[in-house]
């Protein structure tokens, strides 16, 4: 088999190889290397660690099931970190399919730490309007979210007592899959209302936010499942993301090899094309 014939390979063989490279390490769980936290994950961790216990934090889970593998682990880890430090959590989601995931995270972690819905945390749910919701919260949160996800008026929810606008929050923790998300929170809230912010984002969008890190508009950034794994390592609570890292490593190496092989095959094919 020469290089030129590799170039004509049915791509379904490649699909099969990718499938196996992901399934096998997950099924048999071997261990390639430990997870080393990056400075950006540390920034995320420190921003929460630095807050006085009992502060109120805004947790926005702006993602839906399509990026659950990347965003859910960081959402879960952030909720664990916040509840472990007894923070009050005001949660919302600006992706329509996001609120059930926020429910799942808060209920599960709330049970672990004995926190009660309404007293220690609340899920305000979803609101139409994308970045307009953020801007409108700057004017009045009770007007923008008159009721929580269960339909209870916020005036009757203990944890919402005294919450008027962004002034009452110590930190914004954003878990984001794209639009509306990290970019919009930075644009509409961070600089405008001077609220410190950290973000856990999908890997696709992570490079876009580096300019915000350097200016300090973001205090920390988790990029994709690898970022979530680093954060899990920092809070010393290994979960889904860390268990995915072996498969992730192998698939990356495979794709890098594919690029090399593809170009070699292309070189092999060149003369034939000219002839």
């Amino acid at each position: 088999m020469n290089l030129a014939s590799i170039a004509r390979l049915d791509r379904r063989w490649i699909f099969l190889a990718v499938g196996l490279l992901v399934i096998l390490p997950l099924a048999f769980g071997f261990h390639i290397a430990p997870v080393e936290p990056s400075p950006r994950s540390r920034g995320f961790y420190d921003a929460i660690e630095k807050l006085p216990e009992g502060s109120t934090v805004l947790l926005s889970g702006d993602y839906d099931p399509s990026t659950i593998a990347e965003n859910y682990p960081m959402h879960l880890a952030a909720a664990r970190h916040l509840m472990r430090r007894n923070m009050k959590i005001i949660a919302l989601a600006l992706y329509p399919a996001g609120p059930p995931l926020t429910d799942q995270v808060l209920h599960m972690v709330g049970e672990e730490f004995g926190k009660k819905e309404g007293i220690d945390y609340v899920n305000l749910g979803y609101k139409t309007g994308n970045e307009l919701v953020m801007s409108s919260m700057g004017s009045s949160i009770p007007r923008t979210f008159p009721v929580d996800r269960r339909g209870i008026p916020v005036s009757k929810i203990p944890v919402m007592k005294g919450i008027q606008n962004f002034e009452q929050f110590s930190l914004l923790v954003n878990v984001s899959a794209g639009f509306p998300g990290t970019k919009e929170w930075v644009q509409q809230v961070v600089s405008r209302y001077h609220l410190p912010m950290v973000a856990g984002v999908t890997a696709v969008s992570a490079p876009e936010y580096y300019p915000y890190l350097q200016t300090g508009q973001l205090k920390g950034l988790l990029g994709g499942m690898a970022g979530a794994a680093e954060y899990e390592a920092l809070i010393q609570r290994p979960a889904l993301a860390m268990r995915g890292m072996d498969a992730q490593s192998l698939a990356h190496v495979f794709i890098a090899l594919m690029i090399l092989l593809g170009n070699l095959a292309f070189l092999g094919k060149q003369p034939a094309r000219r002839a």
Partner: protein
Amino acid sequence: MHVSHDIGVWVAALLTLGIFSFLYRDNPVYKFCEHLFVGVSAGYYVVLTYFSSIKPNLLTPLFQHFGENWNCLLIIPFVLSLFLFSRFFPRGDWLSRWSIATILGVYPALRITGFGQSDLVQQVGGSILPFWIQGDPLASFNNILLVLGLLATLVFFFFSKEHEGAVGGVAKVGVYFLMVSFGASYGYTVMARVSLLIGRVMFLLDNWLGVVRF
């Protein structure tokens, strides 16, 4: 191995496999799943939008809070929302432009100030850096590279001057910086897609087949 006995898990697993069948080729099972997905998600959005925005932010305050807190101005969005549906009537569709016009006023305004502050003014501020930091040559070098890279990229996106001579050279450097940034985006995109696959495989192995517990 403990295969799930939950019918819900089976439904979810079969739909997952149905979508994956697209890898073999476009086929009726995939088409069925894709259309079901579009339908269910549209239905979901309607229910969610009603209960989380239309009811609490419009209908409840407008119709149930008559009396002291009643905000009569809410009639305006109520009417404008109804106007939207005028486009289903051939002669009334000009009314829906009123509603669209409100949206077309608010969002550009939010974006002008949002982009202006965060992506323009703040970014310029973050790029004004000293080229020499006492005792830290690496940080100094990084500052110089960051600023030069930014300026070269801006020169590449400068359209009033032909890319010749010195300007052309600087623009070429700008292209190199752009290529490195695209390479970084490529790497991160690979990472993202692989993660999503890992998530699905975890579901199939754990919740459905029970081969391993994650």
